[in-house]
Every structure is written in structure tokens, then in C-alpha cells.
């Protein structure tokens, strides 16, 4: 397959890099659960298989008391090489923020409400997590509504490491989580 010039926007020369060989009969489910965890304080997915293309994390989290800033930590390194850009709504304003010099990926830079029955939801996609040549990026949706307060976030994260992701920790700062479920999925086994 070759790589050819683009003649202009909307005006495309052929041939291009094309993928016309489709595996139409592949019935393998591409989204495979790797692990599920329930924890009162932290959850760690260890020894993440390096055999998928992407990771997807789905979290349902709640806080029993105090303010809390839930986060995802990549590879438990403790460095401050994480940063993020987000847009969010707080019910009255559409806002955008940026963070640098973090040790973790914060779901939302906002206090979590008290009450164990109130929950927030997170989906986090990490494409190309097993790469050893690119930095690690994630994109998340975080949502918590508390019937009069709450926020919804769309966030892009960066961890400046080319190391493949082998461990993901979830926690709260300062914690704890009182009711907390998290499921990690691998998307597309690279052997299929």
C-alpha cells in the first residue's frame, strides 16, 4: 500500500493509503473486561496485559464524607509529569481549565459531595496504551449531578512517559471512597 499526495482539501488524488481488506466475518467481541474492583480507599489494576490496542475504564464512585478529588494514577510512578486540559459545565457557566505538574489525572478538580448514595460516573479511554514510543494520553468523561449542584467534564490528559501502561491506580485525594466500582476493559486484542 502506498502513500500519495493530497491535492487539496476535498480534492483527493488516488490511490491513497487504503484498507480495503475488511474482516467482515470477525465475530470476536472487541471490548474485553480485564478486571473489576471494589474498594473503600483505592483500587489498583496491576499487571495490565499488553495485548490490547486501547484501554477503557468505567467507574462509578461515591464519597462518604469530606471533600474529595478522585484521580487516576498511571504506573504508580509518583512523578509530576501529568497534565490536563478540560472543558466543563457547572450548571451556570461553560468553562475550560488547564493543569500542569500533577502526579495523577484528576477526574474533576472539584469537591465531591457527601452522601454514600450519590455517585459520579467516569469513562476514560487510553488509546495506544502499550506503545513504547509515544507519551500516554487519555480522554475522559466525568459526570456527577447532585440535584442542585454538580458538573460534567470532558478532559484530555497527558503523562510524559513513553513507558507502556502496566498499572492503573484509582483513588481520592484525600479520600476515601465509600462505594466504588471500577471496570477496566481492553479494546481489540492485537492478535485478532
Amino acid at each position: 500500500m502506498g502513500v500519495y499526495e493530497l491535492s487539496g482539501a476535498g480534492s483527493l488524488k488516488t490511490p491513497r493509503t487504503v484498507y480495503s481488506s475488511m474482516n467482515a466475518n470477525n465475530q470476536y467481541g472487541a471490548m474485553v473486561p480485564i478486571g473489576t474492583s471494589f474498594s473503600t480507599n483505592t483500587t489498583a489494576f496491576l499487571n495490565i496485559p499488553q495485548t490490547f490496542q486501547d484501554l477503557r475504564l468505567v467507574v462509578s464512585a461515591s464519597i462518604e464524607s469530606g471533600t474529595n478529588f478522585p484521580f487516576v494514577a498511571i504506573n504508580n510512578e509518583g512523578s509530576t509529569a501529568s497534565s490536563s486540559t478540560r472543558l466543563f459545565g457547572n450548571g451556570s457557566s461553560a468553562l475550560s481549565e488547564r493543569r500542569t505538574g500533577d502526579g495523577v489525572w484528576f477526574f474533576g478538580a472539584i469537591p465531591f459531595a457527601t452522601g454514600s448514595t450519590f455517585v459520579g460516573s467516569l469513562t476514560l479511554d487510553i488509546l495506544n496504551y502499550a506503545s513504547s514510543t509515544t507519551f500516554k494520553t487519555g480522554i475522559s468523561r466525568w459526570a456527577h449531578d447532585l440535584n442542585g449542584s454538580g458538573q460534567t467534564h470532558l478532559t484530555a490528559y497527558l503523562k510524559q512517559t513513553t513507558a507502556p501502561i502496566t498499572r492503573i491506580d484509582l483513588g481520592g485525594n484525600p479520600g476515601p471512597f465509600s462505594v466504588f466500582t471500577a471496570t477496566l476493559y481492553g479494546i481489540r486484542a492485537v492478535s485478532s
Partner: protein
Amino acid sequence: MQPIYTQTVGAGGTYVVTFNNIPQTFTDLKLVVSLRENSTGTINQLFVRFNGSSAANYSRTTVYGYNNGVFSDRATNQTEMGITFTNPGSSTASTFSNNELTIPNYTSSNFKSIIGDGVSENNGVLYAAPALGAGLWANTSAITSLTVFYSTVVIQQYTTISLYGITKG
């Protein structure tokens, strides 16, 4: 991700699409909606109820773009969840919305938190609204049914609504 049910609206349209007897064997639910209704002059939210409940315990927080502006708003103590937007009859013909609601831990005894991502498209600035939403159903019951509905407008033919289950394995 496994498909559970799909409903396609037939000729004449309908006010209500309901999914009953939702299996309790998954971890999370995902609702995927391609919807057009017949209202004119405005955009409408996607209205959802769980377990047939019309109690005033739904709420939401949304951030969205519309008519070259950006907005965030909130609704509390609602009798249904209105989260993200759908295509009205005033929008470009043959155009249906693209909405996805993710409901993690839908069988739990906690309140239910919903992530809503939805777009309504249009050839122009009106009736086009990309929206990110956070929803709450302040009820500790497991979700066993889900209803998409409107009271005064009709969900149009060719609307498709699909329910998926996501399992932890």
C-alpha cells in the same frame, strides 16, 4: 458490549419507546439513540424515565453549544431526565440525532449517575447542539426498564433506539 434490545419506530411515529425486563446480569448500560421528532421552532431534550417512575427525582447538569454560543445549565427535581438534544422537525430533513447515555452500575442500590453525550445536527446554526450532560436519578432501585418519551411531540419513523449491556465478565 452486547446488544440487548433495539426498537425502530414505524410509520406514523410514536410518543413512547419502552424497554422492559432489562437483564440484571450486566455491569453497565448504554443507550444509543438516533431520533427525530416533529416539533417546530426549537430543540428538545432527550427525555428518559427509569422503571416507569414519574417522581420528581431526576436532575441534570449540561454544557452545550448552540447558535454560536456556549452554555451550561441545570434542572432539578424533574419528573423525567432531559439530557442532551434531539433533532426537531424544523431541522434539516432526514436528519436524526446521535445520542449516547452511559449508566454505570445500573443494578446498584445507590442513586444512578448518567453520562450523556449527544448531538443534533443541522445545515445551519439553529437546531444543532453538541451537548455533554450529567444526569441523576435519585432512586436506589435497580434499573429494570427504560422509557424514551415525549408528551406533545411525536417521535418520527426511522428513529432507532438501542440498549446495550456492558459486562465486567
